[in-house]
């Protein structure tokens, strides 16, 4: 506690503010070096409380380390570095600093030892991510950012109410395991789940993320939902409700992604799908399941960033985002195609990719617990991931019909970012031990058995067959599919307009029928109480003393009655 330990999250946040005015090569170097410095600092944080301070009547622990915290802080810092490299050519001067504030806050949540610190960084994340969205600059993204902020401020209020109630009940600010058995803890759980993209507000995610810039969405995909996964692992492991919430998210993500035409919105729905696997794992709650959820969050951040980098490259080079306008890009963007496909294979948990060694632990936990229904649902969902993200994304963007587009590969910094993340996807898939060593519990799991490889290949390849057999049903059209954001974009807006209209009409009707009476009354009041009226005139001291005497006498009389 007395030794000097830097807070990696604060270093990244303060560094981001200093980064903003930098230009040229210095800026480029800082963009990559700053998150790597934060990463090095994450590994300096010792086990247990590193910073403590008294605040009001509570002992806060703004910096605390253990394996779980370090795992998430590590991947957040790594993601900030990769995202920064990818975004080197970003024209907006706000986006990368905002993204670093966002990433630093996510690290802050991961290393927080108490709920007050969690809340402070939680809200700072909402600010950072909104600025990332805003920096895209178009009216569409501005409006999407406003809706996004509204949902997150709502989530923040719910979380704050829950934390306040929890502290009032227990007198303890420490962030430890809770059970949703009273209102305060239920509110905390709801606050966490809103950020995880859980129903019913899940639509905030696919509504907002695809409206960021070509590099902004890469940052956005990583932090908010995965800090939610982290706080759920720490706060609510083994809460059975989470199994069903997770399974709902898994299938919701697949079905909506199948109907989607916007390439980055497909990937946004697939974030909800992937987070669903993690949340189901947290609900199962065994060591294997929690390891699986944590490992999957780690690998997911990398391959989802890679997928969105390839989509961002396509968006940047073609200016198009709809599957119905894309296709045939493999001709001139071979590297982007290969990297995007590696990301797609990793998200599908293909053997030799990172998804294979992480997601399978959640399924294994369901099998170990003899949860047949959960296991069958997870297996079906694994097939569905290949369908909606594993094949659909690369097929419609890079292959399918020839759109005639012949864009060049993106700039070198973007290519490098993709190559590094693709290498990580394969590296972790081939050699999982470094990742397993980082997990919160000891790993007693071997992903590469022949049985596992063969069954997984069967599952995925026959899903692939289903995709191509049923391709006519999957043809993309220029449509969107209504989601729950309809409630606040249409129903809520219509309700607000209806209320305004009714109130205005009521006022008009009132004015028409009562205006004469009101005017007369106002004039009478003006005569009596206005500045020139009898009441407003200065009164003599004698009159005042007499009035007070009368009042006091009246009071005396009433007192004895």
């Amino acid at each position: 506690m007395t030794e000097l330990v830097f807070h990696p999250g604060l270093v990244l946040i303060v560094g981001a503010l200093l980064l903003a005015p930098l230009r040229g090569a210095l800026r480029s170097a800082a963009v990559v070096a700053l998150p790597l410095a934060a990463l090095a600092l994450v590994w300096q944080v010792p086990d247990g409380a590193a910073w403590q301070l008294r605040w009001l009547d509570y002992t806060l622990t703004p910096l605390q380390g253990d394996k779980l915290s370090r795992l998430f802080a590590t991947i957040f810092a790594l993601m900030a570095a990769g995202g920064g490299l990818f975004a080197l050519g970003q024209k907006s001067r706000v986006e990368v600093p905002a993204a670093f504030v966002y990433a630093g806050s996510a690290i802050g949540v991961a290393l927080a030892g108490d709920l007050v610190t969690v809340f402070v960084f939680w809200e700072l994340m909402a600010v950072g991510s909104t600025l990332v969205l805003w920096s895209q600059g178009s009216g569409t993204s501005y409006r999407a950012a406003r809706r996004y902020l509204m949902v997150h401020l709502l989530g923040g209020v719910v979380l704050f109410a829950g934390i306040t109630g929890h502290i009032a009940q227990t007198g303890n600010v420490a962030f430890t395991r809770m059970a949703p058995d009273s209102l305060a803890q239920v509110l905390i759980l709801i606050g966490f789940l809103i950020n995880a993209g859980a129903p019913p507000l899940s639509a905030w995610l696919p509504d907002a993320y695809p409206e960021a810039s070509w590099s902004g969405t890469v940052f956005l995909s990583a932090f908010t939902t995965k800090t939610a996964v982290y706080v759920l692992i720490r706060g609510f492991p083994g809460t059975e409700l989470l199994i069903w919430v997770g399974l709902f998210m898994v299938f919701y993500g697949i079905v909506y992604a199948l109907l989607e035409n916007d390439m980055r919105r497909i990937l946004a729905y697939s974030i909800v799908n992937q987070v669903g696997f993690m949340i189901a794992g947290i609900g199962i709650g065994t060591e294997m399941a929690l390891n699986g959820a944590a490992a999957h969050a780690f690998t997911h951040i990398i391959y989802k960033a890679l997928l969105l980098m390839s989509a961002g490259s396509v968006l940047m080079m073609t200016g198009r985002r709809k599957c119905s306008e894309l296709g045939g890009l493999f001709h001139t963007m071979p590297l982007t195609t290969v990297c995007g496909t590696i990301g797609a294979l990793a998200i599908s948990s293909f053997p030799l990719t990172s998804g294979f060694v992480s997601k399978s632990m959640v399924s294994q936990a369901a099998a170990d617990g003899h949860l047949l229904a959960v296991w069958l649902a997870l297996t079906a969902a694994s097939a569905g991931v290949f369908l909606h993200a594993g094949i659909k994304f690369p097929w419609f963007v890079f292959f399918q019909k020839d759109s005639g587009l012949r864009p060049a590969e993106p700039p070198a910094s973007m290519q490098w970012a993709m190559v590094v993340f693709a290498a990580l996807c394969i590296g972790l898939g081939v050699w999982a031990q470094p990742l397993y060593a980082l997990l919160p519990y000891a790993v007693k799991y071997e992903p590469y058995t022949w049985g596992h490889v063969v069954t997984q290949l069967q599952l995925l390849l026959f899903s692939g067959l289903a995709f191509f057999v049923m391709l006519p049903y999957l043809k993309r059209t220029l449509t969107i599919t209504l989601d729950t954001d309809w409630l606040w974009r249409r129903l809520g807006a219509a309700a607000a307009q209806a209320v305004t209209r009714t109130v205005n009409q009521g006022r008009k009707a009132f004015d028409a029928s009562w205006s004469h009476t009101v005017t007369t009354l106002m004039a009478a009041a003006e005569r009596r109480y206005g500045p020139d009226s009898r009441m407003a005139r200065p009164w003599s001291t004698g009159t005042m003393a007499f009035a007070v005497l009368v009042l006091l006498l009246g009071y005396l009389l009433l007192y004895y009655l």
Partner: protein
Amino acid sequence: MNDPTHDHWLDRPANVKRLWRGFLVVLVLTVAAEGLVHLHPHFEIESVFGFNAWFGFGACAAMIVVAKGLALLLKRPDGYYGKSDD
């Protein structure tokens, strides 16, 4: 569309046909491999022949059907929420 980049080996129908044949062979091989490796199933249903193959295919087909059904209710034109301005 006469630029040289158009003539990629993947653009020739004969090669696409070859890919399809290869894919089908691999499909058969993955199912046949069940006889060679130890599967250590956790549930009875996993022991049914080619479980992952037919379950994966069936699950995907079912999800596509559900998605199409949902689309009947919830599909809207692209500009439903107003035109995008970027």
